[in-house]
Structures are given as structure tokens and as C-alpha cells.
């Protein structure tokens, strides 16, 4: 399903090593730093060319911060982000000026809210042309042709080029956002909750469009969402985040078949099923997500985990590969017998 770019099948396009982002909390007249919101904590993973890596987690788990650090919209506290450019892995945190600008052509983002991510005072033409102008790629008639091409690519009518965003529905606006992201022919596109603001029927249209574009243009996606079923549908691999850390990472089909982290199990069981006959026992996580400026000691999930033992309160679990490509952050991944959702439909 995934077309490959230039190199072999397993070319790593993006590698993240021990990435940490803390936001300082200032207090008082002297603006002393009294603490840190630990938004992203020691996250490592790699993304292969042409694949879709889904990142799923609840609000406040750090998934958007992670995306923005990768794009260098925020400066990281520590760690490295390596990106493959012309066959070499380069650390994007060391880039400056023109080099950074060049890199930005390769990495683009699609935002969550199609209503606030488009400038209401610019026409669709101006919105999509802006990145092309900034990078000096085309102008004049050629620019217009390219914008028209992009509009066609995302399924919008070229005639509507001179309209303002308010003339479009939510789904159409999201298509404009996608066209803008694709204008520079990027290799890596970060999709930050691209469908969560859309209606169900339109959501499916945009998901299909993203899949088609990936096949056509050989894109690599970092797909961030809180909706487990959407992430499972679109991703090749999935990373589950909790309180700034990735707690489990696996091939997409293993998400429901063999979840290995208790948080993944709880997330799966919380998804409401559209099958009225499935009366699965639901795991209700007690309490709320702890404050990221004062995370629990040991395993961060132990305060809400139903399998937690004494060890979990003190010892930080290790990031462990329990089967090929399946990583978890849990002391008991090998011994726990966890379950996904019962997928056998009674009606069939």
C-alpha cells in the first residue's frame, strides 16, 4: 500500500533520540523558575520513509508539543531530532538560517482546527500561494497554475480560488489546509488532529484523501490524534503517549490483538463501540491525569493502574522490546495478560 521513495524499504527518515521538552513555570516579581511542566520526557523513536506513525493519547499528554518540537516551533530542552536529507541524517537542532528554511520545505503540518488555522482575510489563492512565494518557488501565472493543481489534488474546485475561507465548510477548509501543507512537496507531513473537528461523514472523506495523497506522493505521516479508532485505521505503527512519555509502541494490528501496557488496555476499553451487542467489561480508570509539573514517581501510570504493585511506585520501568517492533514501558508487560476489544460481531 505504501509506495517507497528512493532508498530501500526501511529507510529511516526521522529519528528522535531522548527528546525532552520542559516548560518552565515562573513565579513572583523576579520571575524565578519554580518548576517545570514536563510536556515531553525522554521520547525516542524513528519513522521510516513512506509509513504512517500514529501517536495517540489524551489531552495534555504532550503529543502536540512533540510535533512542534520536531518542527522546531519550540526549542527542545534536550535530545536530538535527526532528519534524512540527501541521504544523510542531520540534526535539525544544529541548523540555522537558510539551512533551516530549506528543511522546512520538507516538513509540513496540518492543523486541527480548520476554522482558526486559515487567515480569514486572505483568499484561498493567497493562503496556498504563501509558502510557494516565501520559498521563491514560483510566481505569476506559474504560481496560479500550481495552486490550481493543488486544489484539484485535494478535491476542491479551481474556480473557488478567489474565495475567502468563510465561504467553505469545515471539511473543505481542512482540504485547503492540506493543499497548503503539500504546496512545497514535503516528504514528512505532521497531521495534528486533522479530523477531530470534523463531522463523522466528512471525517471519513478527509481520512480517505490523506491515504490517497500518501500513495500518490509517497508521503510520510506523523499522525497525531486522540481517537483510537481513527489512528488504528490510518497508521502502520502506533505510539501511545501518557503524561509526556511513550508507554507503548507497536505495529498497528497488534494494538487491539496484544496490547501490552495497562494504559493501552484501558484506552481500548474506553472507546464506545457502535455494536449494541458488545457488552465488554469496561475498565474505568480512576481519577484524572496527574499534573505534568509534578508527575508521580516510578512508573507515571501507577496512580491509575489496576495492576500496580509496590515496585511501580519507586522504580522507573525500562523501555523494553518484548517482541519484534513492539516496545513497552511497564515492569510487568511480559507477565500481564491484557485484552483488546472483542471484535467478533454478534450480528455477523
Amino acid at each position: 500500500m505504501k509506495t517507497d521513495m528512493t532508498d530501500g524499504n526501511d529507510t529511516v527518515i526521522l529519528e528522535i533520540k531522548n527528546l525532552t521538552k520542559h516548560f518552565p513555570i515562573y513565579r513572583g516579581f523576579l520571575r524565578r523558575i519554580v518548576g517545570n511542566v514536563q510536556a515531553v520526557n525522554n521520547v525516542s523513536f524513528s519513522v521510516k520513509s513512506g509509513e504512517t506513525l500514529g501517536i495517540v493519547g489524551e489531552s495534555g499528554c504532550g503529543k502536540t508539543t512533540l510535533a512542534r518540537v520536531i518542527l522546531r516551533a519550540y526549542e527542545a530542552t534536550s535530545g536530538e531530532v535527526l532528519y534524512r536529507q540527501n541521504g544523510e541524517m542531520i540534526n535539525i537542532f544544529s541548523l540555522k538560517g537558510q539551512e533551516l528554511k530549506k528543511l522546512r520545505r520538507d516538513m509540513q503540518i496540518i492543523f486541527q482546527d480548520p476554522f482558526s488555522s486559515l487567515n480569514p482575510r486572505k483568499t484561498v489563492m493567497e493562503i496556498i500561494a504563501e509558502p510557494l512565494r516565501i520559498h521563491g518557488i514560483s510566481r505569476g501565472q506559474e504560481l496560479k497554475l500550481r495552486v490550481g493543481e493543488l486544489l484539484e489534488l485535494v478535491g476542491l474546485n479551481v474556480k473557488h480560488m478567489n474565495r475567502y475561507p468563510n465561504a467553505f465548510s469545515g471539511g473543505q477548509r481542512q482540504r485547503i489546509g492540506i493543499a497548503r501543507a503539500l504546496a512545497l512537496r514535503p516528504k514528512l507531513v505532521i497531521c495534528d488532529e486533522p479530523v477531530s473537528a470534523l463531522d463523522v461523514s466528512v471525517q471519513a472523506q478527509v481520512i480517505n484523501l490523506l491515504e490517497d495523497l500518501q500513495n500518490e506522493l509517497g508521503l510520510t505521516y506523523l499522525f497525531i490524534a486522540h481517537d483510537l479508532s481513527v489512528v488504528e485505521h490510518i497508521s502502520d505503527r502506533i505510539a501511545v503517549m501518557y503524561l509526556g512519555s511513550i508507554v507503548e509502541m507497536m505495529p498497528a494490528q497488534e494494538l487491539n490483538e496484544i496490547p501490552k501496557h495497562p494504559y493501552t488496555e484501558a484506552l481500548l476499553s474506553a472507546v464506545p463501540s457502535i455494536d449494541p451487542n458488545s457488552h465488554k467489561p469496561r475498565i474505568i480508570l480512576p481519577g484524572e491525569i496527574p499534573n505534568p509539573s509534578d508527575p508521580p514517581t516510578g512508573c507515571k501510570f501507577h496512580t491509575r493502574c489496576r495492576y500496580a504493585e509496590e515496585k511501580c511506585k519507586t522504580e522507573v520501568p525500562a523501555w523494553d522490546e518484548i517482541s519484534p517492533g513492539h516496545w513497552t514501558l511497564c515492569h510487568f508487560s511480559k507477565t500481564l495478560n491484557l485484552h483488546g476489544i472483542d471484535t467478533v460481531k454478534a450480528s455477523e
Partner: protein
Amino acid sequence: MNENEKYLLKINNLKTYFYTLDGIVRAVDGVSLTLKPGKTMGLVGESGCGKSVTAHSILRLLPLKTSQIKEGEILFRRRNDKEVIDLAKINPQGKLIRSIRGKEIAIIFQEPMTSLSPVYTVGNQIIEAILLHRQIKPQEAREHAIQMLKSVGLGMVESMIDEYPHRLSGGQRQRVMIAMALSCSPSLLIADEPTTALDVTIQAQIIELLKSLQKQFQMAVLIITHNLGVIAEIADEIAVMYLGRIVESGSLKQVFENPLHPYTIGLLKSVPIIGNQTKKRLAPIPGSVPDPLSVIEGCAFRLRCPAYKQKECPGQEGVAMVEVEPEHYVRCLLYDRDEGVRGNEN
């Protein structure tokens, strides 16, 4: 529908219109539904289909200057004297509706962040609701408020009652809203997208809470949501809305296992399901919801319908509701045959 059957709420051919500078928006255009005591009805549809306006019409919460209930009746059976009143006809600012709001019909709104006042403590807001409807001393009301907060599963209630809403998380605020709504034991609870703004794990908590409270308080629930999964978890009966009209209604099982209307079928097909091994493409409904100002003759869904028939569908008259199997109604010409019993409403 059986006339002898006791209903709590019965809406007949409700039409609520908005008068805007650009024209008339027929937000609710002929909705009929019946809610039995103690049952849960799910009203499902995409944004702009009129589901919230239907709910707000019941409580008469709509803006007075720009909207009007044009036609129809909203029959509500009151608790004590069992008399039936038509909410559509009473004064939306009068004493009668005020004695019903919050006491007999309560509502939970979507946004737990904005539906609580930021300048009053949680306790103040609940106690106000209790004192408005019951002749009891403030101290007793406070105790009742504490009781209610405990029953919605909040911890450390004695200190939380004096907190301001900004100190609480989204899930906690929604629990406070539910506690407030239930503080006068309403016979009907309207939940307008109660979990949409919440995370999945918190959503699961709230769904379980609503289910257990419904049993405990013996109330009917009208739940409004666009999330088919939430509906499947909680509702007994379902009504699917599209462009101001109900296009299909029936029991949960009927609608989910044997969806009839092309729109319902499309909605069910367009959600990805976890564990669906084959990564097949989703089947979205083409196009998007038409402009609310436009008037579509005949079937409103025909512009996006895969089963569209050029001849019949754009007809002058609206399509009638047809009872295809007992209590399972659909508004579609595909089923408009003689064997189907015609519904009495249009």
C-alpha cells in the same frame, strides 16, 4: 403509536425557525418524537442538523428576538398532578416554564468549561438551583448539594464545594454540571453532547455515571450527540436527524443492526472500527451538509444519496415517515410501499 401508552414527552411536528439577515433558517422542520418515562432516547446527527435546537426548544431557551416556534406542540406530562402541558405555547419568560426548568426538566450542556459561572463557587451554583425550587433552609440546601456531589462520584466534596470552577478539571466540571442538573430530581434530563469535550477515558466514566444515575433517579434521558458509539452505549431508542428532520427512528437494536435510511447506513459505514483487520477504505457520504438557508424540496438527503432516484426523490412534497417494522420508522421513498404502514405524521 399506541395512544394508551404513557409518554413523558411528546413532540408533534415541531418547527423552529431562525430569522437571520440572510434569510430564514429552518433549523427544526417538522420533528416528532415520543419519550417514555425512565427511557433513554438518543438524538443523533451531524452538526447543524437541528438536534440542539430541538432540545433548546423543549426548554424554551432559544433567543427570543431571532427565533420562533412556528408550528407544532411539545407535550410534557408534569410530575405531580399528571397534567399535560404544551411547552410550545407557554410564555418562555413566564413563571410556569421557570418552575419546570431545572426542576422537572434539567439540561447538561456540552462545554463544561463555559457552562459554569467562573465568579461563583461550585456550591453557590448548586445551592442556588436547589433554593429556587424547594422551600428549604440554606443549610439544608448545602447538605443536599454535598450529597449530590458525592453521588456523582466526586471525592473530597466538603472542600470542593467551596472551590471555583477553574480549579476543577473538565471531567470534574461535567460531574458538577450533572450534580446540579439532578439536584431537584428531574423527570427528564436533556444531555446535549455531554461527553464531546472530554477525553475517552473520562468519557467512559461519564457514560457509566449517567447510566447508573438514571437507574437511581428513575428519570428519562434525551441524549444528543454526533458520536454513534456513545449512543450505542447508552440509548434505548434512537432518532437520526438530518437537516431539521428525523429520517429514521427505532430501538437501538433495530437502527444499528438493520439501518434503513441511506443516511443512517452511510453514517455507520463511515466510522472506523477498531480491530477491523482488513484495512479497507472508509465509505464516506459524498458532499457535505447543504447550506441551512437553502430550501430543498422533496427528500433533503437526495443531494448526497447513493440510492437517489431522479424521478421520485425531488418531488414537491416532503417524504412521509413509514413504519417498516413495528416501531421502526424511516423517511425514505425506498420504503414507501403499500406493505409499509404509513405514519400519521408527515
